[in-house]
């Protein structure tokens, strides 16, 4: 393949490009998961406290995020801001949508966690003189966390994989990087496999770890 050719084959330096892109995938996922989890916990708490009011207001809104494809959400959100007058970069729009999406999923998980703590346990805690927040911190949090950590990890892994969709907006993360390389090298099979390995090595250890944690806690 001569240097005059537009298409050059896959080179070693391309690994650097892919690793950089994997870093961006990781960045956007970690941002979305961490902020989304905080919001999700707050929403979950609201849902479990204000049952009926919460369900018809916040619950309905969160439900929309779960029932509309993430891809459509991304495109909608990205195209919404120019209409009201200012532009968002693909990264900002993608992160914001992913945060909303994560928090709507985590809210359901967190609510399940709070509900997993028996009412009697909480009454006992209050009777022993713990304040509401002490009860939350020392009773509900440890028990609830055990109940829902696997589902939370499932959500987190899902978001890591769904962050691939941000590529549609033009943000150069792992999947987008693979598209760019494919266009240049015309070797889709090789590159898709490499990118697959990248995603796999990001995701697989976490899923193993959670499976092990789950088993360990199960037999307690």
């Amino acid at each position, binding site marked *: 393949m001569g240097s005059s050719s537009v298409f050059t084959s896959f080179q070693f330096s391309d690994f650097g490009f892919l690793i950089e892109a994997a870093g961006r995938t990781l960045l956007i996922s970690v941002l979305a998961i961490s902020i989304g989890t905080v919001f999700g916990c707050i929403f979950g708490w609201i849902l479990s406290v204000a049952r009926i009011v919460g369900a018809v207001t916040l619950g309905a809104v969160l439900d929309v995020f779960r029932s509309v*494809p993430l891809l*459509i959400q991304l495109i909608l959100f990205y*195209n919404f801001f120019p209409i009201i007058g200012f532009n968002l970069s693909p990264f900002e729009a993608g992160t914001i949508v992913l945060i909303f999406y994560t928090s709507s999923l985590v809210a359901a998980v967190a609510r399940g966690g709070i509900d997993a703590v028996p009412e009697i346990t909480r009454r006992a805690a209050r009777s022993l003189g713990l304040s509401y927040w002490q009860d939350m911190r020392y009773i509900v949090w440890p028990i609830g966390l055990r109940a829902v950590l696997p589902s939370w990890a499932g959500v987190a892994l899902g978001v890591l994989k769904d962050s*691939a*969709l941000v590529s549609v907006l033009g943000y150069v993360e792992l999947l987008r990087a693979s598209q760019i390389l494919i266009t240049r090298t015309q070797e889709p099979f090789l590159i898709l496999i490499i990118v697959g390995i990248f995603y796999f090595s990001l995701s697989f250890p976490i899923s193993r770890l959670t499976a092990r944690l789950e088993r360990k806690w199960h037999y307690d």
Partner: protein
Amino acid sequence: MEIAVLAMVVGIVLGLGLAIMRMQGTRPLAWFAVGWIELARNTPALLQLFFFGFGLGAFGLHLSPFLIVLFGLSFNNAGYLAETFRGGFNAIPATQTRAARSLGMTQSQTYIRIIIPQVFRLVYHPLTNQMVWSVLMSSLAMLVGFRELAGETQFLASKTYRIFEFFLVTAAIYYVIVKLFLAGARLLSWRLFRY
């Protein structure tokens, strides 16, 4: 939309097969099933679609967009469902199998008549979740050029430059479909699992 249903049906069949292979199969079969399951669960669905689209294209195997989406989604669904089914199978006591076998049923009769109906009852709820997921994922089809709901929207949007309006309507349609499906599933479960 029918692609989501189709992919789901294929996914259920393959998922059942994989789950049984993983638990009962000989070493190579079990490894094959584990490989499939872990690959499907640990890489993005979009990457899998691209793989079936462009990856196989490298071997001169050009699939139509419909087949790409069908294969990709089925592959993904099967991976997730296999784990769901495995959970279901593990929840069925081994005594059930032994009882059926001692009544003179063959291995396959045991599975078809005794085990699988019970598993379906157990995994009914996760199954509906996966179906919703499958509907939502079918929107990815627009990225490989298949004209389902999202793809059609994109086509119209690029023709008229009214991206936001078109996608807003599409979002509403997806929402309604998911809600209708969930309501239907609840009705069905009430009819099926009543006694």
